[in-house]
């Protein structure tokens, strides 16, 4: 039995479900639909053994029958703005949080393959913490300064010539280049430690590791943050590619070291053939790259879930 948790309008989850249904029956899949959390009940008993029973979708399922789970739950903030929002008041949100909390506990304890366990995904909450882990497997990381000192930021900028700044928590920010227009605002860094990073020139890659498989894409864009290229009227071209075997192996080692069965890894290769790693996304929106590159990452994930 495979468990999926999320919302069907989420394209990675939908792609996995479609891929699973190519080899499984609908009855082999349990779907925890976040839009129906108010109709979901969960019962968890933990001692030396774990027993968890899920009541949803007019079914009762003993979760010990689950061999693998794929998690893409959205925050309750998202749900309160979603299509069923009219049913969701504070009591309902509290109930949903409780159900999710119990299910999250189960995902940490179950012997089933969980893609990915929340505790293993947590390094994404502190990018500099994650960078240090990245460096232990042999990838280069850009020179990085996190500071409340405008003078330190200026010195760092002078040292590296081109510097970018971006958030360090899981709150997404647009990666931006520091320019003379920022000088006046630089004083604001005294309010909160702010990250500055050496700009690394080179070709950008997104690598998806799925178990022992590696899918590589090359990204061609003039933008400092290709995710927002189109918004800024710039182009982005994503092409399938092959990366050197030692780099592919290092990506697999990194994902495995972080306890991740799947990962989206952001790399850049400099003209001197140095490979820098910027980030590991533990819950990658792989469909964006899949659609552009034609690589069937969804099938590989489905296979990983089924084979476990």
């Amino acid at each position, binding site marked *: 039995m495979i468990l999926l948790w999320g919302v069907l309008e989420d394209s990675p989850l939908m792609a996995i479900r479609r891929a699973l249904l190519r080899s499984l029956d609908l009855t082999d899949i349990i779907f925890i639909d976040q839009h129906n959390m108010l109709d*979901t*009940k*969960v*019962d*968890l*008993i*933990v*001692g*030396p053994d*774990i027993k968890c029973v899920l009541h949803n979708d007019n079914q009762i399922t003993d979760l010990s029958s689950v061999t693998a789970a794929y998690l893409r739950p959205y925050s309750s903030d998202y749900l309160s703005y979603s299509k069923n929002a009219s049913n969701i008041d504070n*009591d309902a949100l509290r*109930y949903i949080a*409780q*159900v999710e*909390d*119990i299910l*999250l*506990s189960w995902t*940490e*304890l179950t012997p089933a393959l969980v893609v990915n366990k929340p*505790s293993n995904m*947590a*390094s*994404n*909450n*502190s*990018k*500099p*913490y*994650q*960078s*240090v882990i990245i460096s232990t497997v042999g990838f280069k*990381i850009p*020179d*990085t*300064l*996190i*500071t*409340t*000192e*405008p003078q*330190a930021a200026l010195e760092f900028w002078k040292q590296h010539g081109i510097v970018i700044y971006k*958030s*360090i*928590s*899981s*709150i997404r920010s647009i990666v931006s280049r520091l320019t003379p227009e920022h000088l006046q605002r630089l004083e604001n860094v*005294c*309010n*909160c*430690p*702010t990250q500055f990073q050496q700009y690394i020139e080179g070709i950008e890659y997104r690598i998806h590791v799925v178990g022992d498989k590696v899918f590589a894409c090359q990204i061609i864009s003039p933008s400092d943050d290709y995710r927002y290229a189109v918004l800024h009227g710039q182009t982005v071209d994503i092409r399938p590619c092959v990366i050197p075997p030692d780099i592919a192996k290092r990506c697999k080692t990194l994902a495995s070291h972080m306890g991740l069965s799947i990962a989206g890894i952001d790399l850049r290769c400099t003209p001197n053939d140095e490979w820098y790693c910027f980030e590991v996304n533990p819950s990658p929106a792989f469909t964006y790259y899949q659609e552009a590159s034609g690589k069937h990452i969804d099938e590989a994930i489905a296979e990983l879930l089924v084979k476990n």
Partner: protein
Amino acid sequence: MLVILASVHDKSVEHLVELWDSYDVRVLTCKELSIVGWRHYLNDSALSTAVVNGKKISNEQIDGVLTRLPYVAETELSHIVNHDRSYVAAEMMAFLVSWLSCLKCPVLNKPTPICLLGPNWSQEQWIYAAAKVGLPVRPIHRQSSQSNIINNAVDDVQRVIVSVIGDRCYGAVNDKMAEQSLRLTREAGVDLLSVHFAAYEKGFLFITANLWFPVDSYNISNAILDYFIESNKKNAAHRQRSPQLEHVK
């Protein structure tokens, strides 16, 4: 120098500073993350600086950090405008996780990316880990309901709290309890943990474990201080240079 990372609302810290008054002890709160002077170089920690008690110091001057703050809450950040508070709280949390992880001195406990005190385990995870290392447990039953039922209540019996600090236990009534508390502490990958038991005539039952616990007793605060002194001595011997805590204050 010893640093206590604490909430602005944690009054017990003042008591700890008094108890450790023969050492150079300073309290760090989130407000100080909004002061000019922090430099956290990811690729060269020797150049990194911190701001403690309003003064800029080198990371190398810090001989130990006791963390009393589980995460950066918005309530710690009254000096930040309301509109930016949740973003700043997330960024400061991410910063502290990285800064504490990069320090070379002993940190009680090392942070995880979601909790500055160590692994942010649920009660179910503690029960399972306790059972795994051989502690007698009463299974916990959690059921989703409007009243949030959590059922592993123990009868009204005597409670024993064992405080584990490094490889020492305080408060254990017997060797077995001490040994099993130590085993649970190792399983959690921490050096500071309080383990709660229900004591019966014929034995004891694990109730829960906490990464945060009161440190105002003389024994506990002394044990924490000893932990830092001994860890620094070990590190110094390892690095073959003189212990730094010898010359504090």
